């Protein structure tokens, strides 16, 4: 239905796409794969008219199209969910879903109908939210769902989803796949980007692989074994990079046990928001926080880091009672926090990669003790290499990097601090498989050096792989704890589900 021929796009200093051919057929789900910075999002932005292409033609049902703006693309029947959640924070959920296509009565917006339609759109994803709330107050995952609901609410012929599942947990992901299958049956062409191989094989019919802006190939999913897919994406023998492949993880955290807790929370609580939390984190230990969407994992991390400080309970760092009322207190105590929403809480978009990377370190040194130039360069070089951050130069504004690479810059910012305690909220969100393994390896090597880590992830595999202990949250309260051998995805799910009297919105 949609065919892309010879598409190219360059940005100053980067060739983002070069002579790419893609074919999307009606009634088919196509996965778009590639490393961070391979050009997936750029391809999507060309399809939706955000950027004009340098060369190439787009055909929709045989006719040549030249989308000039997202609005135009939408009128052509191309609907998209972009990688960075694009919603208007102060507007209500209903307004966000229906923006630009509000039902009217007597020429004016019929607000009742807007709400009803928005509710319908959410219902397709089995969500029941108060649609008059503003989206800014929603957790990231729900924002993502709202963005998806918005894309589904139009009569599109082509649906494009750029990493829709990066902040969703399993249940939400399954619901999304359900809807995708239904739409596919209705004859839509669906283009889908993800870094999760399981998901690719779960839903997609064909797989298109991009590498460094060039097309590697378009394959039928059934005909492409995993190993070959990874090989196509990375361009190397998978063995070289993927040595620490899933499953082969050495049980981490074994070394640390008897030492004094690096962080101990006793009855820590923010009234009406989260808690009470009991947590003891020993040096070198990686503790996972698990729970459903909105269970309060992020809130726990934010409370520990003093963003929304606790108003009750005690906190001790390295055995000393410590009060953390602001992020600065937390940093001084040796904590680091990699936030979940990188666009809002993480990157400083117009500053360079270098500046973003050294910001926290410099802030902890104060304004006067400037990090020497060579030291800065060394750090930046080191982390660009260690995390394989793909950037034209350290001076590039970070907003021009691909989503995954932005995430790596943020991680590097905090690793450069050499913290004693790390709070990582979805650190691998939007990061490609190769880099994900590298990040996990980094976390492990830090933990070997005695850094204690709290890891929040919607991917239970990831938690199971890395954590020696898992704290389970539900309804913004601590529910239980798993340790040692019992840390497996299945047991975590069971622990979350077990204490559930009734499913929330059935």
């Amino acid at each position, binding site marked *: 239905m949609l065919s892309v021929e010879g598409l190219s796009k360059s940005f100053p200093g980067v060739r983002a796409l070069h002579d790419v051919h893609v074919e999307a057929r009606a009634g088919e789900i196509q996965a778009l794969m590639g490393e961070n910075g391979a050009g997936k999002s750029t391809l999507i932005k060309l399809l939706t008219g955000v950027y004009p292409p340098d060369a190439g033609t787009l055909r929709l049902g045989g006719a040549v199209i030249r989308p000039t703006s997202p609005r135009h693309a939408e009128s052509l029947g191309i609907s998209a969910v972009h990688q960075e959640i694009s919603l*208007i924070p102060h507007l209500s959920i209903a307004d966000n879903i229906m923006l*630009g296509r509000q039902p009217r009565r007597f020429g*004016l917006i019929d607000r009742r109908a807007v709400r009803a339609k928005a509710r319908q759109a959410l219902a397709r994803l089995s969500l029941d939210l108060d649609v008059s709330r503003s989206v800014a107050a929603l957790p990231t995952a729900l924002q993502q769902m709202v963005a998806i609901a918005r894309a589904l609410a139009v009569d599109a012929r082509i649906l494009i989803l750029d990493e829709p599942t990066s902040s969703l947990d399993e249940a939400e992901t399954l619901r999304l796949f359900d809807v995708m299958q239904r739409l596919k049956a209705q004859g839509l062409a669906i283009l889908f980007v993800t870094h999760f191989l399981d998901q690719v094989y779960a839903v997609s019919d064909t797989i298109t692989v991009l590498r460094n802006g060039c097309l590697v190939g378009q394959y039928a999913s059934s005909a492409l074994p995993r190993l070959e897919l990874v090989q196509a994406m990375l361009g190397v023998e998978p063995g070289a990079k993927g040595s620490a492949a899933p499953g082969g993880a050495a049980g981490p955290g074994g070394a640390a046990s008897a030492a004094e807790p690096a962080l101990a929370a006793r009855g820590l609580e923010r009234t009406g928001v989260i808690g009470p939390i009991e947590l003891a984190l020993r040096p070198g230990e990686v503790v996972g926080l698990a729970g459903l969407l909105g269970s309060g994992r992020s809130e726990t991390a934010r409370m520990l880091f003093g963003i929304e400080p606790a108003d009750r309970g005690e906190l001790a760092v390295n055995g000393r009672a410590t009060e953390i009322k602001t992020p600065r207190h937390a940093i001084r105590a040796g904590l680091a926090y990699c936030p979940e929403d990188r666009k809002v809480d993480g990157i400083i978009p117009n500053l360079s990669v270098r500046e973003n990377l050294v910001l926290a370190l410099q802030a902890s040194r104060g304004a006067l003790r400037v990090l020497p130039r060579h030291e800065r360069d060394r750090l930046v070089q080191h982390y660009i290499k260690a995390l394989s951050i793909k950037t034209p130069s350290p001076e590039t504004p970070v907003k021009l990097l691909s989503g995954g690479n932005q995430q790596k810059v943020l991680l590097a910012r905090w690793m450069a601090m050499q913290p004693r305690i790390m709070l990582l909220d979805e650190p691998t969100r939007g990061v490609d498989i190769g880099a994900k393994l590298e990040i996990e390896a980094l976390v492990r090597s830090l933990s070997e050096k005695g850094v204690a880590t709290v890891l929040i992830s919607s991917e239970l595999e990831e938690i199971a792989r890395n954590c020696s202990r898992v704290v389970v949250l539900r309804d913004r309260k601590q529910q239980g704890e798993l340790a040692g051998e019992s840390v497996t995805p299945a047991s975590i799910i069971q622990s979350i589900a077990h204490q559930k009297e009734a499913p929330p919105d059935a």
Partner: protein
Amino acid sequence: MLRWDRRDLPLVVTAVLLIALYSGVLVCYDTARSLRFLVDLIKGNAAMGLCAVGMTFVILSGGIDLSVGSVVALTTVLVGTLVAGGCHPLLAFCIGLAVSVAFGAMTGHLIHRFSLPPFLVTLAGMFFARGAAFLVSMQPIGIDHPVLDWIVDELGFALTIPGLDRTWVPATALLFLVVLVLGVILGRSTSFGRNVLAIGGDRQAALLMGVPLGATTVGLYALCGLCAGLGGVTTALIDSAGKPNIGAGMELEAIASVVIGGTLLTGGAGSVVGTVMGVMITGIVRAVINLDGRLPSPWHHISIGLLLLVFIVMQQVLIRSAPAARGVEYGRHS
């Protein structure tokens, strides 16, 4: 069905404080205890208030328009010169409005097309319109026409509140009220209003969500031009004159009213209803100083500053301490 929305909190707080302020004035000054005081308040702030309505939309979109004061002046001299030259006043009004709308649209076009900062473009616009006003007429011109006299003297209605008093509501006050209502509707119940909020909330996201940035931006500034033009027509009516030097500083007053009404200068949140309250608040504060009549000049400035300061601080303190505000921090984009 009215539902309580946390985002309306600033509005409610502002309304409560406005009522408190007004009640205080009623208690302290017996001359304020008349309908006429209220009508004077509306009439006296009609021109600035009209500008503020247009300004609300511009600020909601994350922009700013410094040219409104000059556009008011330009409109008044255009009307004055045309009427003096034998043109029918109503036609003169239409021409004046057409020019101000075109001026606004041009501003919006420049801002959008060349992605220039609104501050610079409208500052240049402020100078340009001022110069143009002087070009049209170097000196103030009186406007004399039976139609105008009729509008000023006869158009309007007598308002009576039984047991209280009876007063005349002139056309200028009516115009302001009508534009207000239209502004509220435009802001709340049209897709234009939503699009403006979206652009101010997150420009990039708005683009990705298919908001027509160009049309909306041009429309916004044209709307603001229209409101300033209406402000000019009102001023011409109230003064029976066209003056090239009027309206200096009106832009800042209008911006102040908008912001006091709870609209974020960074865009994305706020409302015309808030602006109306902002206009009333600044109007009452000024009126109080005059009602009192005992203050020497320096204290006029100081009292206005102090009263506004107390108001704003109370507004903030109340908003922050309200129980509903807890946890708002989570998603606050500032």
